[in-house]
């Protein structure tokens, strides 16, 4: 498990870690060919289904859950927002929420 980034962590560092999580959920070879960026949406661009997003959210919570309440943040999203969620949305929450 990767340690929680120290105080002052940048959005880039969080983004890098989120892409690591995506690689563990989707497979490194999949992420390599998908050109994952901050703007990638989980559903439309990465073609993740609901259960893949569950696995991603659980791992993000494992890594960042002691500092931010990621699951509560997800709960507050509408169905439409969840479907449009991007990697940057998650990174912004983690950086700003700490």
């Amino acid at each position, binding site marked *: 498990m990767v340690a929680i980034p120290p*105080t002052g962590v940048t959005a880039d560092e969080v983004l890098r870690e989120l892409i690591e999580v995506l690689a563990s959920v989707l497979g490194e070879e999949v992420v390599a060919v998908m050109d994952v960026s901050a703007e990638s949406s989980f559903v439309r661009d990465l073609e993740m*289904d*609901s*259960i893949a*997003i*569950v*696995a991603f*959210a*659980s791992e993000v*919570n*494992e890594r960042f*859950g*002691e*500092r*931010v*309440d990621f*699951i*509560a943040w*997800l*709960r507050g*999203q509408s*169905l439409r927002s*969840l479907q449009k969620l991007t990697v940057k949305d998650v990174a912004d929450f983690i950086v700003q929420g700490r």
Partner: protein
Amino acid sequence: MALDERFVAVGTKKVHVVEMRPDAPLRPPTEALAPSAHDMPSAGAQALVMLHGLFSNLSLYFFRIAPSLAHTYRVVIYDLRSHGLSERASGAHTLEVLSEDLLALMDALEIEKAALAGHSYGGTVALLTALQHPEKVSQLALIDAPCLTEPRFAAARLRQRLSHGRVTDRSVARYASAAGLSAQARRSPKSQEQIRYLLTEGRLEASFSAGRTTMQSLDLGRLAMPTLLLYGTRSPFRATGRRLKAAIPCSVLELVEGGHDFPVKSAPQLTEHLACFLAGTGI
């Protein structure tokens, strides 16, 4: 709230499980890590086990339902066999088989007694479990669950839906629609493949027929635990809710705006109904 996602061995198969439970509040990183009263959270929390319906998975509850209930309860959500990330299992997916999985999972998680909440076929599994093992179930919430005694589950109707025994693209589409899958899920090749698998290897038609026989033989009047019947105003199973209300002594019937898929579209309302029922206050 604490979250734990893992695979649990149930029989010879791996089951994908997520637990959410009350936990110590978040605190600043500078605070000492010594134990405090806040850190004694979930050991005594009542367990709530939630079952999804056919062709769905635990994500039905993960995002917008389980986190709210986990402030009070130890919430266990899991993928039924051959669904989500749980291992596939060829052979019938009868109510009995899925009920045995549920009981084995509760044993593995050391849950002696739980409130059960199930949507659609998962609700029927919960109902059978409550009837056959009342000592394991404290409260029961049936969310738009069929009884399998409805005409749509009669053998002739099932054969018709399956294009007379052959699993075709059309029969897959019919089952996807009957299960209330979203348009996006209905178009997904992965969903279509899963439905095809359950109709063939999972012997779904035979499982429905067996379940129909089982449910016809059981006396719903014996059900003694508090039971919430939550049905959609536009659901094809709304009449089932009324029939169950008449048959189950300690039941209450509540309607939520929507069709069979209202747990997806009206998650906050569903959560509120469940929370009030579990707390014993009614809505």
